């Protein structure tokens, strides 16, 4: 991809990231952090890509470890966030 396209995506995503969470009550800080935490679990996609093209046992071993860790991050992150938010269900007036 063209570097300028990548830089554009990056800069725009920075602003979107700033914008979406600029007003959030402290009650939701923990679930929001946990949800964002789960989102960066998509590094799983990167781990699968490098596992695919790893050529030595060392590379494959490291990639497999990365897949395990990334899966824990992603799936565990979404599940625990859901549990936190479940507590608030129906409690709002």
């Amino acid at each position, binding site marked *: 991809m063209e570097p300028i396209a990548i830089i554009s995506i990056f800069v725009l995503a*920075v602003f979107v990231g700033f914008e979406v*969470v600029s007003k959030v009550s*402290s009650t939701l800080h923990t679930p929001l952090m946990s949800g964002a935490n789960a*989102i960066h679990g998509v*590094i799983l996609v990167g781990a699968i890509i*490098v596992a*695919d093209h790893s050529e030595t046992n060392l590379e494959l071993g490291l990639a497999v470890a990365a897949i395990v*860790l990334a899966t824990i991050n992603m799936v565990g992150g979404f599940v625990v966030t859901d549990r936190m938010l479940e507590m*608030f269900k129906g409690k709002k007036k």
Partner: protein
Amino acid sequence: MSRTLYDLIGLAAGVAFILALKGLSHPKTARRGNLIGAFGATLATVVVFFFVAGPKTGVAHALPLNHLGWILGAMAVGLAVGVPAARKVEMTQMPQLVALFNGVGGGAAALVAIVEYLHLGSGATKAEVIFTVFTVIVGCVSFSGSIITFMKLQELMTTRPVIFPAGRFIIAATLVSVIGVGGWVVAALGTTPLLILAGLSLLFGVLFVLPVGGADVPIVISLLNAFTGLTVAASGYVLDSVLLIIAGTLVGASGTILTRLMAEAMGRSLFGTLFGAFTAKPQDTSGTAEERPVRSGSPDDVAILLNYARRVVIVPGFGLAVAQAQHTVRELADLMISKGIDVAYGIHPVAGRMPGHMNVLLAEANVPYDQLEEMDEINPTFSQTDVAIVIGANDVVNPAAENTPGCPIYGMPILKVANAANVIFLKRSMRPGFAGIENELLYDPKTMLLFGDAKASLTKVVTALKAL
């Protein structure tokens, strides 16, 4: 699947993540937001099996992916570990689980970068090498830093700031070494310098988090979370994945803002949180605290005090959650309400171990939402409050935050229970709170202490109050 379709689906997942963060910022849409995020992540993960992507230097091959068995097996292991951990964790221990998940994410990003580095041949551009080295450094810092925060929250090690002689020089020297070795790795591709770099970065992560203590720990988790986001974005550049760039940058940016919001909620400057401890002197924690007289009371004394009160404010803290006393507290509150007493809960934004943690715990015990009042609402009412009951909280009501410059929590907004006519502390012992600071309020003549497990004490108070 064509490259275009692959990228479009990646973009759709990116949009899902934006909607997820947007949803998570509002109470009504929070749960749906999280589900949208999970959907986006699932979509992104499924689609990667149908297109042989990157690296730019790699050679495309036909489907299926190489090492498919290993990939699926590793995902199964991750599921088998992650799901039960997330399902079974006690809500009191949830902050450290989030720290741990963040750490493994950082570790995964660092491992991906290391594999990528081993794989990058002479065809790699300088930019790709620089981004890879960046990911290794920040991923390792996030990993080891998160492990330390996990250990602090789990109380596997001291929760206080760990400050050692010449600490800041050691930290500065480590940082300089990390940057130096990083430059070396960029200049001369080699496995050994990379491993040295990873080791130094892990060390830096540990040193970076050790001096942080008490209420500042969640701020650091949030910051490391943002760091991990940036590593994912950098990986996206190297692996030519728009999705990883979008997702990583979103988390990096929103995580930075969130870190600042959290710091503001606690009245801390971000800079002070991260570097304040570097300059702090080790506190004299031995003190003469234990020898000073305190007024301790019986459950009957407490019940009598409550019986004649018109307004009572309950200030729950982490100790309440540890004792699993949420339901007993509710019983006491209901009993007081039936006696015509005005009852409210004063919730400090960082009561518990993380911002919003206490709201989650009380919601779990079905405490009506309209009885929970935030700090700004409740503080002006303490002067009309007859009794403030502090249950297993300490730092969030410690007047030292207002009148002792230089103490680790100085500047943190507190619940001003000292303005109430009477203060009752339910405590297990005279041990200081998470931040490790003595609380002068415990020695105040209008304070009564009721020692013991919060749940057992509350049950006795309920019984005594019923008898009156």
